[in-house]
């Protein structure tokens, strides 16, 4: 069974139909890229998976998203549980600026009651920061506000914050779009490291990035899923004409 199974997923903002009958399976322990030009619905698709889309009162969703076989849209399910299964990293690094570096990572497990005591929390924070390649840079500044970090460090802090909840999958919405090339490549390296233990879905409008980091790739265009497959396959022998034009840079 794939980790995530999406079937007949549709989404609207008001009357605007932005995701059109998406069917997609995301296998385990891989990097799965969702690529497509700006405005094609990539961010919406990610937010439909962890139900963050519901924060927008105009958004409507139909269809099914399953994680480990559990339907996240089932009536019986606790939405906070759903969101904890998906760690999320955003396009603009968004640590809580007034909280310390430590608290940014600790806040999730602490408020969700996932740790028993302070030392367990300390350990978890350290573990997450190490996993996010940030520990060595911040270990002496844990009490300082997150706003003092550079953009790349803030993004890795956000990755640590997501990891601290021990999610089943990590969703990254153009995580490097607002970073300089050095910081961006550091994030890409980190993703390759993380896929040993995690499944990562990365949204990108940049086909080169998808080619560099992903094992599987889906091409989304105007709300429709045009093509899905192994990255090497999609980039060398795309089935669909649109995909071919996109990967050589003629769309977007």
């Amino acid at each position, binding site marked *: 069974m794939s980790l995530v199974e999406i079937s007949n997923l549709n989404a609207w903002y008001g009357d605007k139909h932005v995701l059109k009958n998406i069917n997609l399976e995301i296998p385990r322990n891989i990097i799965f890229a969702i690529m497509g030009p700006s405005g094609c619905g990539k961010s919406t698709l990610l937010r439909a998976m*962890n139900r*963050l889309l519901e*924060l927008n*009162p*105009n958004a409507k969703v139909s269809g099914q998203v399953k994680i480990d076989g559990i339907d996240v849209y089932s009536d019986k399910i606790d939405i*906070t*549980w*759903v*969101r*904890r299964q*998906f*760690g*999320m990293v*955003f396009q*603009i690094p*968004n*640590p*809580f*600026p*007034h*909280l310390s570096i430590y608290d940014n990572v600790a*806040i*999730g497990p602490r*408020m*969700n009651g996932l740790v028993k005591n302070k030392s367990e929390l300390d350990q978890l924070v350290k573990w997450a920061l190490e996993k996010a390649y940030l520990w060595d840079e911040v270990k002496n500044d844990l009490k300082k506000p997150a706003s003092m970090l550079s953009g790349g460090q803030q993004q890795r802090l*956000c990755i640590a*914050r*997501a990891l601290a*909840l021990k999610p089943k999958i990590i969703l990254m919405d153009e995580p490097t779009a607002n970073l300089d090339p050095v910081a961006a490549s550091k994030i890409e390296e980190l993703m390759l490291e993380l896929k040993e233990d995690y499944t990562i879905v990365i949204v990108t409008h940049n086909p080169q990035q998808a080619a560099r980091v992903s094992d599987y790739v889906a091409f989304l265009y105007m709300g429709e899923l045009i093509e899905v497959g192994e990255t090497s396959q999609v980039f060398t022998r795309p089935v669909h004409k649109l995909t071919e034009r996109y990967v050589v840079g003629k769309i977007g």
Partner: protein
Amino acid sequence: MNRRRLEEKIMLGVISLLAIISAIPIFAIIINIYSEGLKYVSLSFLIDFPPPPISGGAGGIGPALVGSLILIGLATVIGGAIGFFTGLYLSEYSHTKLAQYTQMFLQIMVEFPTIIIGLFAYSVLVAPLKRFNAFAGAFALSIVIIPYIALNVREAYKSIPYTLKEAAFSLGLSYPKVYLRVLLSTAKRGVLTALLIGMAKAGGETAPLLLTILGTTFTYFEGLDQPINAIPLLIYNFALSPYERWHQVAWGASAVLLTIILTIFIISRLVVKEVKI
């Protein structure tokens, strides 16, 4: 210098002058109140009963000060709680009709003559009890400050970037945790400022108290169901009296009231300044 330049200069000069003129009253008031009133203020002035009108000691404004503090505290707690949650609702449910109408009503309420709010409190809390009482005053003041607090709390929450809200929800936190813990700590300065503005308003209002608390002169506090006094009301009553001695008390009380309001105002400024860091 060409003509356009000259015109611009003159225009700027006129505007600046008008700006200065409009700021004159506030300084004139502050200087006037302190020069007339500060000389009567002492520790005993803050504690003692008012003097008898003709003979006796200097007296003070103890009951009115105690009353004001109680009324400000109570109004801030009641009005603050209701105003806070209303503001939060206005910010987070701004797409609903209810929120839109509520906001419109609150904006009208800001402009409401406060004597009418006092009259309302009189009819629901004084007339039925057949007694002027402290709670009616606090109730009226709460109603006066709710719109100020609600509208400012709304602004505070509106100013939180959407991406932080998404971050908080993505951690699987419940609504109360997101809004009352994570985001409140982001918006806390705005919220604090809202409460301080409410406090200053509650401390300075006279009209809502005229018909609710009566204004006792010789008791500090006897219970929320009993009359009390407040500084603005004391100023009003004493300034209108024919006694020179009471006029002096009114001046001193004005200096105290102004100090309370200015202190709240300065605190709120300091709070706001820190937001920008």
